[in-house]
């Protein structure tokens, strides 16, 4: 955060009227271009008006464009947004291309003033599980369990052991006959939640 941003108000990202949940509405309501007909600093704006403005208006029928010639004054653009905010940009000595770019920038804004975002996401309900308490996610059957409990004390491996993987592969290939498979089922542990081993048969 640079020194310039110390005085920016901080807040969270927001939209006007849940925009985009139903349909998207461009927030730029009106754009006013204020320029001088003769002064040099308005040259870029005048050129923009002569060449690109009609295209802009045609591409954005939801935006009303007003032109305001003001004799011997500085040139600026004033954007009015649906949330009631206004934004200004001084366009003195802008080239035609710069005017086009800044207009595009104004068009794509939500209209809320620029703020320092505290986080890049925001939710009105930060916790779905509710306020934490010592018993959050604790299953209630533990209340009637006597400890030490055998099932919960056992080591539960994340992956099957090398022997088990080999036996599984052998079973898939059909290497083991029925008498042996009975034997393997007794030796292998409960592998319900264990990811399957690499399937060697695919490589053949």
């Amino acid at each position, binding site marked *: 955060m640079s020194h310039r941003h110390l005085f920016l108000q901080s807040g969270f990202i927001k939209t006007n009227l849940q925009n985009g949940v139903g349909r998207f509405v461009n927030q730029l309501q009106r754009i006013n271009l204020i320029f001088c007909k003769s002064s040099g600093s308005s040259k870029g704006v005048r050129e923009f008006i002569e060449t690109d403005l009609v295209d802009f208006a045609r591409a954005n029928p939801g935006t009303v464009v007003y032109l305001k010639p003001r004799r011997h004054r500085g040139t600026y653009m004033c954007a009015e947004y649906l949330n009631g905010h206004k934004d200004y940009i001084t366009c003195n000595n802008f080239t035609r291309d710069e005017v086009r770019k800044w207009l595009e920038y104004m068009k794509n804004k939500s209209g809320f003033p620029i703020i320092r975002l505290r986080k890049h996401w925001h939710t009105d*309900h930060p916790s*779905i599980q509710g*306020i934490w308490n010592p*018993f959050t996610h604790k299953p209630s059957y533990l209340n009637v369990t006597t400890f030490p409990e055998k099932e919960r004390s056992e080591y539960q491996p994340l992956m099957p052991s090398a022997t088990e993987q080999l036996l599984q592969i052998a079973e898939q290939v059909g290497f083991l006959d029925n008498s042996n498979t009975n034997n393997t089922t007794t030796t292998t542990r409960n592998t319900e939640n264990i990811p399957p081993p690499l399937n060697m048969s695919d490589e053949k």
Partner: protein
Amino acid sequence: MASSIVSVVRRVSLMRNPQSLYHFQFEIVNSRSFKRWVAPTLKIMKHRRKKAGPEPLRHRSVWLNWNYTAELYAFGRRLNETFRDETLRTALIHPSYLEQEEKQRQDLGVPSQAVSLKLEHNSGLVASGESLMNTYIKQYIRQAFPKVPEEGICEIWEYLVSVDVLSHVATHIGLSDIILCADFPPEKITLAKSLKAIIGALEFDQSKERAEYFIQDFVITQLSDKCIFDLWDIPNPMAVLQNILEKEGKDPAEPRLLWQAGSNTILALYYVGIYSNRKFLGKAPGETLAIAEEMAARDALSRIFGLTENHKPLPFGKQGRQLIINNNENNSSLSNWMLSKSI
């Protein structure tokens, strides 16, 4: 204090001249000085501004850069809707505007036959828009929350069609600048009526379906970040739960203390679960036993009505367009609510 280089006209010398008795010679020089007038002037200006009060609120149309026809065209295109010009103009004219205008004409001494403006106001469109909105919102909520009893549906509906919500929507789609009414700034009720008139106009110009999508996209989306139990308060949740279980012929709900921690401290915590015939219904923590029991009953109800925090999001956008509303009947009321019927 502001200081700068200013040009000062200085008398340089005084000398005798044969032509005139006194001849002054002047020259212009740059000299550095303090602008001692700046601070006092600003102080006075600020004082005057404070005395005059804030700038009076003026309608946007007061300014020179205002084109009502262009504004109307842009309004429709912005929302991606096509209105007929006459319908949109009618939808935006409130009866109070016509009264005001006619009174103004009378006061100016216009002959009585010329006083009438021959403009139609939006009362008809408001009525049609209102009835469409009322039916569609209820149908939509019933479809989205099939297990919620009719009382809850009515509360959600009441929130959505409240003047606050509708006026908020109307302002933020840009209606407040273009409506014609006597009150300025427009009152909330006027804004809400304008939105209804716009919906009525859309139904009149386009189709009922387009108007319904408009309601879905702009009004019902206001529900997207709301907790339903904030809108619908159930006064005695335990009694309601008992009532439902009794009607089902099940055993009465039985609150049980699952855990407790820190009793007799300010951070006391009781965790209560609710069971019916050893079958789990709901559980919740609370500061006291009574609060925990009530919250657990609420949790049980939210599970029964399908309103838990992880319930399916409402169908908007693409899913909203695919929504087929086939349920024209009311959901059953809380007194007749049956678990089996709802599932």
